[in-house]
């Protein structure tokens, strides 16, 4: 998901390209105890490889902190993040207002925390929506092939031809400015990438020997896709999901920066920067944009680090 001007303008497909599926884990069907032990060992292996990557650990820390802030935001904010006080605007950081106050006199620290919650809710919703639609359509297209495949793939062609941000702006304008509109717009623009990713995975796995084995013992198509193909396609999808969260955060902030999407009175990160843009060239007003900009950057970096770490640990062959 790249965003005209905002998030990386182009996310080259090579970089999101379907990664090779991990070795099919021989998991005897019905043999619960054995399967369980295999799984536990697998997770330990993944964690052991993940731990080796220091940046991935930093990323994990960031993600955990963000999650905590997002969940406990109402308790953590010292002030009402939306309360404006036009008599007390653009106060520099102080003991009273840690990050100062913004152009509308809101406490910037509370605003950033509120923005964290907003960013997490929106980006998670976008990624989940896009993944559900994308995985379903991609799996069907890849497994069934023929007409359905052509239909789904040509549809993704059309959607991918739109500049990401511009497409999102149009969709938001149709639904009117609101948080839900942003979620819908970003999900509409994001599903084709996950559909293609999933289709590539299914195409590669469909012809593999263990799937053929499952087919030969008479497993139904649904069972083959859900039990045999999906679990082996999880790694690239998970990596993609973590990458996408960062992209969704930036996309929402970019939209809000342009004054589109999240309503003006919400202290959203991109909004905060957009509202400060008139005064940011005045010396000493840096804090107005630096704090929200830091929040966005730390978030995207954190999720990117985790995605990188997962890439290395879920599939050692890729190293």
């Amino acid at each position, binding site marked *: 998901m790249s965003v005209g001007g*905002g998030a990386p*303008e182009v996310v080259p497909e090579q970089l999101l390209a379907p990664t090779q599926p991990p070795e099919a884990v021989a998991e005897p069907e019905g043999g619960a105890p054995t399967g369980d032990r295999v799984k536990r060992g697998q997770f330990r292996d993944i964690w052991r490889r993940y731990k080796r990557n220091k940046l991935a650990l930093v990323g994990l820390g960031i993600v955990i902190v963000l999650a905590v802030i997002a969940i406990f935001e109402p308790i953590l904010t010292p002030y009402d993040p939306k309360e404006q006080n036009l008599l007390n605007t653009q106060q520099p950081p102080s003991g009273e207002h840690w990050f100062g106050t913004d152009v509308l006199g809101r406490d910037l620290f509370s605003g950033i925390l509120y923005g964290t919650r907003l960013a997490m809710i929106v980006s998670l919703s976008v990624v989940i929506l896009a993944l559900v639609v994308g995985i379903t359509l991609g799996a069907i297209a890849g497994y069934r092939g023929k007409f359905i495949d052509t239909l789904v793939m040509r549809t993704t062609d059309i959607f991918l031809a739109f*500049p990401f941000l511009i497409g999102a702006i149009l969709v938001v304008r149709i639904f009117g400015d609101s948080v839900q509109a942003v979620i819908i717009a970003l999900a509409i623009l994001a599903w084709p990438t996950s559909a293609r990713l999933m289709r590539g995975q299914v195409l590669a796995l469909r012809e593999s020997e263990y799937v053929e084995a499952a087919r030969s013992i008479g497993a139904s198509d649904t069972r083959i896709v859900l039990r045999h193909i999906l679990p082996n396609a999880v790694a690239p999808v998970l990596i993609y999901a973590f990458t996408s969260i960062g992209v969704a955060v930036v996309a929402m902030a970019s939209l809000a920066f342009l004054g589109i999407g999240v309503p003006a009175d919400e202290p959203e990160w991109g909004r905060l920067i957009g509202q400060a843009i008139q005064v940011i060239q005045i010396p000493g007003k840096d804090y107005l944009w630096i704090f929200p900009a830091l929040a966005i950057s730390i978030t995207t970096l954190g999720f990117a680090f985790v995605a990188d770490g997962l890439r290395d640990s879920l599939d050692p062959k890729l190293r």
Partner: protein
Amino acid sequence: MVKFVVRRLVQAIFVIIAASLLVFLGLFALGDPFASSGEKVVPPDVQAALRAKYGMDQSLPMQYLTYLGNIFTGDLGIDFRQRREVSEMLTAVLPNTLRLALAAILIDVIIGVLAGIIAAVWRYSFWDVFVTILTTLAIGIPTFVIGIFLLANVSGIWIFPVVPRSFTVEVPWYQEVLLPAFTLAIVDAAFIARLMRGSMLEVLRADYIRTARAKGLSERAVIGKHAFRNSIIPVVTYVGISIGVLLGGAIITETIFQYNGVGFLLFNSIRNNNQPVIMAIVVFGVIAYVVLSMIVDILYAFLDPRIRLS
């Protein structure tokens, strides 16, 4: 080869037409541009006259087909605000965006390719780690944060013009293009550096490189001639698609620096609900992207015979 080109061409035309239909329906869903809104009251007969003037009294399929037909004659309609020809508005800002796109590409190719080669040739050295860290940061930090940073700290200093620009100060285009071009180039340079490093490392493992070294060629010739040519292919692809994306208007970057390009025009048109201009720019952006990725595909098949076969 001919079959491949034809198939690709048909696909491109299909995507463009389908995308234009989507935009058209999207704009229709945006609502009536001539309706009364807020304090602005438009009498019904004026609304009807405006609709008739812009052909919006006809049925929706008719409007779309007319629009599609007009595109081929270069007629993109007239804008709602100042009754200018949309095609003229577009051609007025297009050179600016073209300059910006090319400047950004020039910067990111030079930086990206050099950094990628250095990182690959001296793998695991200090410079490799340095490049890796920089690319990670450049990809992780959003373009618009970089743009805001440059706007807040660099514009107005030395050769970098003040933003928002004053209409009494004449700024040559090559100065004006600098900051937005750098902003756009940073992310792309990082992607190119990574691509270049990866493909260079792969190529360096190839047998023909060992052969070249074995027959006593200098390291310089091995890297510069033999390895470079084959490892640059993914970069060519990336750059081609990147140009397509940039031509459609870097809306955030151009808006931050108030750069008079396609993206900034689009931003202003969206604000004013100036539908003919939005339609023209979005369709233009789609065409630019589709055509360039088609060219890249064909070029790729031309450069690498292995792809043609599949």
